[in-house]
């Protein structure tokens, strides 16, 4: 008996081995070297080499010098995630409950933008938000923008670009969740004295929470690391941490700063995600 148990244990480990190996190769080793690089003595160069002095100060310097792009990345991503959640929820809800036989067509339309490249999609937003584009004209007409006001190159443009580009990441998990909801439960809530609004918040919303959680994570995490939108739709005032990491790692030749910033971003997002999952209480929902 004990013997077969041990055999079973061994088989399990053997079965896990390939996954562990892949994980080690593609995650642990790069991660390890990232940690190492973030502790190099500053002032090294490719030519002179980089000395390992466990220079934790890299982190302090990185935060001091680049807190603004760091903050931008988080704030833009959070704002875009919120917009995606509101728009995506309405969209997913409509597709799941109200679209009838158009359901599959609408779903395809949601992911249709993915058939073109990310860059091309974002570039087209440059035109849409351009100073003489119709959106700016309309906003100016409505006095939401001053006569020399603009959208392109502002925080707003970056957030809109992110929201647009990541919307499908929100809609699909939301749809999967909402579509699964038994319509009769919503009827039951009506039968039990909930008007449609209360019914939504007491039944539909909690039942769609798994979709909300995975949708917000799938949107927030990549959006926080994205720098294409900030570069193409923003200005020099909207730099995000992705731009800085890229620049520091290549042109500037500061692998220590780039690595420290990457670590900060990674750990920061990880902590936020954990807190969020904890708060949403979805361990049992998922």
């Amino acid at each position, binding site marked *: 008996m004990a013997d077969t148990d041990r055999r079973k244990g061994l088989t399990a480990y053997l079965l896990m081995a390939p996954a562990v190996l892949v994980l080690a190769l593609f995650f642990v080793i*790069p991660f390890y*070297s990232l940690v190492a690089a973030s502790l190099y003595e500053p002032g090294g160069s490719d030519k002179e080499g980089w000395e390992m002095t466990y220079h934790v100060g890299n982190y302090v310097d990185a935060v001091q010098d680049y807190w603004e792009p760091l903050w931008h990345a988080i704030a833009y991503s959070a704002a875009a995630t919120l917009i995606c959640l509101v728009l995506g929820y309405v969209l997913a809800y409509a597709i799941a409950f109200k679209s009838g036989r158009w359901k599959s067509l609408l779903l395809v339309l949601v992911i249709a933008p993915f058939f073109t490249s990310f860059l091309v999609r974002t570039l087209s937003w440059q035109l849409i938000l351009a100073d003489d584009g119709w959106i700016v004209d309309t906003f100016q007409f409505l006095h939401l923008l001053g006569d020399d006001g603009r959208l392109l190159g502002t925080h707003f443009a970056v957030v809109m670009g992110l929201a647009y580009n990541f919307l499908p990441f929100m809609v699909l998990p939301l749809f999967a969740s909402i579509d699964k909801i038994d319509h009769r439960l919503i009827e039951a809530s009506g039968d039990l004295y909930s008007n449609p609004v209360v019914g939504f918040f007491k039944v539909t919303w909690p039942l769609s929470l798994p979709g909300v959680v995975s949708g917000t994570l799938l949107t927030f995490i990549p959006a926080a690391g994205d720098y294409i939108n900030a570069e193409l739709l923003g*200005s020099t005032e909207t730099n995000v941490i992705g731009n800085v990491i890229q620049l520091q790692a*290549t042109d*500037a*030749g*500061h692998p220590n700063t780039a690595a420290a910033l990457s670590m900060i971003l990674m750990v920061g997002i990880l902590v936020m995600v954990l807190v969020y999952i904890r708060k949403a209480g979805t361990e049992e929902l998922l």
Partner: protein
Amino acid sequence: MVAFGGLSAAALKLPMFGIDAIQACADGGIAKDVSSSERDLIISNWTGYIDPRKNKNGTLAQFEDETGISVTYNVDVNDNAEFYAKVRNQMRACEPIDRDMIILTDWMAARMIGLDWIQPLDKKKVPNLHANLIESLQGKAWDPDLVYHAPWQSGLTGIAYNADLVDEVGSFEELISRDDLKGKITLLSEMNDTMGFFLKVVGADPGDFSDTEWENALDRLKQVKDDGHLRQFAGNNYLQQLSQGVLVACEAWSGDVIQAQYDNPNLKFVAPEEGLALWSDNMMVPNYATHQTNAEAWIDYYYRPEVAAKLAAWVNYICPVQGAQEAMLEIDPSLAENTLIFPDSDMLSNTWDFMSLDDEQQQKYEGEWADVISS
């Protein structure tokens, strides 16, 4: 990101490791030249930098016909720093990068030569280079005798504006201060290009400046940026935005502007009052290239005036070859007169060449530059 891939390879030296200084390769980076038995040549170049390769009468096809060398032409250089990051680990480990010729901009060429990553050319095998290189490109401090490099094409950095939308922008000072341009201009993200102009603006000589002058120039850049005068630092795609009216003016490379003018004649290139930066992208043979002789044949071929003219007629950058202007008369006389392809002495006298930096300076200036543009 490219950098992480590189870091992970180094991680094999566990535990917590540093990275050693670069050592010259013990064998001098020399590989056995098999040019005579293998008639091959592998080149890495930027996009849009050669006349159509499929054309039977094109320069590349003619080269292959004439020499029997078969050319593998890769367009995998998008950015100097990025290309550097791509080959850095193999280069420092004294391993071949499987290319016989790479084409990089002056400052990166200087850096790689300084790192001993480039093989010297056999002077006897490139007589056309030594005979025909235009004078203004001769005598670079980092390779005065053309031992390591041969300019492929050169360019001028100046100003472009959309004449449909704004009045002429005559100087760099205007570009960074005129109110009607505010928030609708870009500067180039290459440090040498943009800082050259800022050095000029603060009264320094980009070809020879002090640390204090550098700091003044950087302060001026910071100020312009903090004023919200800039839309972005751009490296590509800026002319498309200029043409669409998303931008009204920008710092620009001459060849890009000429090409864009075919689609939109409203785009104008200006030689600013401060002058122009003259730079080149240079052919070099990296360490452990196995077809150096073939690469030299290629260089010599492209330094024939009629070949250079044919190439220049298509690429629209500045042709570095003496005599190509005369040859151009037969292809397209209007291009022969275009000073953005064949600059006259007036124009050339108004150009500068960015100060040659050693590796330490390069790193310091690049770092400070990156701090300003990314914060």
